[in-house]
């Protein structure tokens, strides 16, 4: 079925431990369904071998790093999907609400623009200076961490306090 060696169980296990530690230390949660999560991480390792970069296992990567940049895990869409659906597109990263079982994990709509839309976006990206901010800036009242995004993160990636400690700064 595939023309490359699959990662061994030991490689998957050590990658799992690394990603788990890294994500937890920056306020993200891996899916507690360890079997499902390890399958996804194994697939990312397969993509690293196959494409040279860890493209999202649930999206069709082109193999061209520039084209795939927005879907290299963790993808550009993870945080907005965590806010809106409590999970990333793959179900690899999930919110604490889903982690604790308060909400059921489901497959969610694709946020990434379609191939045709991406072509249009590519054609339109010229250099421009905007006087308006494209996103509001949030400030962690505990450690001063600033981030520009639609809503504050669930947990401050620096000092680990909850998102409710954030104020709208700009």
């Amino acid at each position: 079925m595939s023309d490359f060696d699959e990662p061994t169980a030991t490689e998957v296990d050590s990658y799992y431990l690394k990603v788990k530690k890294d994500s937890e230390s920056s306020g993200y949660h891996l899916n507690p369904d360890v079997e499902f999560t390890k399958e996804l991480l194994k697939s990312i390792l397969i993509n690293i071998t196959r494409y040279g970069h860890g493209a999202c296992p649930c999206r069709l990567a082109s193999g061209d790093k520039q084209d795939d940049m927005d879907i290299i895990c963790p993808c550009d869409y993870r945080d907005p999907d965590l806010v809106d659906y409590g999970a990333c597109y793959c179900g690899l990263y999930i919110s604490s609400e889903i982690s604790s079982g308060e909400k059921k994990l489901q497959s969610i709509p694709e946020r990434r623009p379609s191939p045709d839309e991406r072509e249009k976006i590519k054609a339109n990206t010229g250099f421009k200076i905007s006087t308006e901010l494209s996103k509001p800036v949030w400030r962690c009242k505990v450690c001063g961490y600033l981030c520009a995004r639609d809503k504050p993160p669930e947990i401050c990636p620096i000092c680990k306090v909850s998102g409710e400690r954030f104020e709208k700064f700009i």
Partner: protein
Amino acid sequence: MVMQHVEGQDKGKIVLFALSTCGWCKKTRALIEDIGASYDYVYVDLEKGKEREEVVEMVKKWNPQVSFPTIVINDDKTIVGFKEDEIKEAIG
């Protein structure tokens, strides 16, 4: 492009476009096999070059976003994503 055929009960023509690496695609295959329906599937990520372009064009016809899993039932109805209830209703 080679479609893989899985034997089962005839519940109409079921074609699954999937990725070999995707968790939701695995769950979708498991669900269809649980239901016991016969179906054809292709792992689009394992296709290369011209063959991949051709199969991507096919998916695009049913699902312009080209996301996976995409299930096409009787060349008519499309289900995008692992929508358990919708899949059960359509072929269960």
